[in-house]
C-alpha cells in the first residue's frame, strides 16, 4: 500500500503551525501503542542516528514523558512532553520541550505544542500531527536543530567510514 505512505506536510507559517498527515498500514490500536508506550516510542521517536531513551512515562493529563535524545557519540539532550489531554485511542495533546539534565525546561529553547489525532480508515490509520509554535522564529530554531543534528551525524558516519578505509 505504497500510496498510503505519502506524507502530507502543511506549513502554515503565518499561523505558526505545522501539520503532518500520514496513513499507516496498521490498526489504530497498534499505532496508538507505538505513540504512547515507551518501549515502542524509543524505537522510532528520535531521528536517525539518534536514539530516544525513556526515563519515565505517565500517560494522562498532567503526566509527563521524560526522555533523552542520545546521539551517535553518546551526547544527550533531555526532553519532556507534558500531556495536557489523553483520549485513548483517539487523540492526545501536550507540550514538548528541551530540558537540562534534571528535566527542568531549557528556557532558551522553544516549546512545541502538540496535538496528535488518530483516525481509523478501513485497515489503516490516519495520523494527524499539529504542531503549534509560540513564535515564528521557533520554527526556524527547531528546523535548524534538526538539520544540524542530521548533518553532524552524517559527518560522524563519514569519519567512521574514513577510519575504516584507513585501517584496511
Amino acid at each position, binding site marked *: 500500500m505504497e500510496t498510503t505512505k505519502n506524507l502530507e*506536510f502543511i506549513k502554515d507559517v503565518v499561523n505558526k503551525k505545522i501539520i503532518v498527515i500520514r496513513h499507516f498500514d496498521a490498526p489504530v490500536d497498534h499505532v496508538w501503542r507505538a505513540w504512547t508506550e515507551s518501549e515502542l516510542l524509543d524505537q522510532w521517536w528520535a531521528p536517525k542516528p539518534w536514539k530516544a531513551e525513556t526515563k519515565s512515562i505517565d500517560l494522562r493529563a498532567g503526566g509527563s514523558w521524560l526522555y533523552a535524545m542520545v546521539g551517535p557519540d553518546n551526547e544527550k539532550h533531555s526532553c519532556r512532553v507534558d500531556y495536557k489531554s489523553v483520549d485513548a485511542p483517539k487523540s492526545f495533546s501536550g507540550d514538548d520541550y528541551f530540558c537540562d539534565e534534571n528535566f527542568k525546561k531549557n528556557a532558551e529553547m522553544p516549546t512545541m505544542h502538540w496535538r496528535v489525532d488518530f483516525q481509523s480508515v478501513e485497515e489503516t490509520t490516519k495520523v494527524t500531527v499539529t504542531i503549534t509554535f509560540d513564535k515564528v522564529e521557533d520554527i526556524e530554531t527547531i528546523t535548524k536543530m534538526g538539520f544540524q543534528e*542530521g548533518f553532524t551525524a552524517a559527518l560522524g558516519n563519514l569519519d567512521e567510514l574514513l577510519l575504516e578505509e584507513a585501517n584496511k
Partner: protein
Amino acid sequence: MRRDIFQAIADPTRRAIISFIVTEPMTPNTLADQFDISRQAVSKHIRILDECGLISTTLMGRERYYLARTKKLKAVDDWIEPFRKLWEDKYESLDHVLKQLKSK
C-alpha cells in the same frame, strides 16, 4: 536591526497585513482601515515589511498599491524542507515498529 522574512512575519499585525495583500493589491488607506491601530502604526509595519523585501509597490493613477511578494514567502517554505525530511525518516522507523507489532 535584522531584516529578513522571519523578522517580517514575527509580528501578528505584519502577518495580518500579509494575509490581506497576498491575494489582492491594497492602497495604504484601505489597508489601514482593516486595523484598529493608528495609521502611523500600520505604515510603520508596512515599512518593515518593505525593508524585509516582502512588499511590492505599484502606482496606479495617483494611488499606491501594495502587494505581497509571494516568492519571498516561498523562501520560508524551502527553509522548512529539512523538517519535512525529518518527519519522513521518523515515520519510516514507525512503519518498522508497526510491522513488528503486527507479526507478533
